């Protein structure tokens, strides 16, 4: 069975944590699931959200960002907008999430 791939793109801080939660929800449903925080800086993740990130990674998902402080503060993986575009080409489902 081929598992689907989904990527949620988040461009608004108020939608960041829920977008990441949605990504985890799809991973639980046996999809390769990713999120990208595009130009969106978030605060330090609390323990609950850090646990969610780890669960997502356990299921081969990841949260990417092009904001260096998200990498430094929360250990997210850096991905430029050009790299994001290339990653999107591999996806079955692309979700520009919420509002900008």
């Amino acid at each position, binding site marked *: 069975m081929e598992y689907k791939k989904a990527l949620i793109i988040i461009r608004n801080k108020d939608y960041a944590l829920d977008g990441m939660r949605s990504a985890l929800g799809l991973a639980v449903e046996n999809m390769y699931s990713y999120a990208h925080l595009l130009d969106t800086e978030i605060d330090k993740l609390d323990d609950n959200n850090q646990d969610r990130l780890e669960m997502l990674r356990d299921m081969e998902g990841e949260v990417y960002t092009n904001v260096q402080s998200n990498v430094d503060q929360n250990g997210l993986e850096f991905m430029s*907008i*050009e790299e994001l575009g290339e990653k999107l080409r591999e996806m079955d489902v*692309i979700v520009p999430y919420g509002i900008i």
Partner: protein
Amino acid sequence: MKILNVYRSQPDEKTKKLVEIVNRDRESDTFELFVDNPDYDILVEKIFAADKTICWW
């Protein structure tokens, strides 16, 4: 692979860049939802005709 790009608002430079990469070497179509009175009938026909629909902010 036919991609349908739907826009809820006028796409900014970041959105345009992503669309350009996703569309590269593929057939693509667009639909603007931000116009007055969008024709949802046409939108649904385009969704059914596409392999993948992306609705951008």
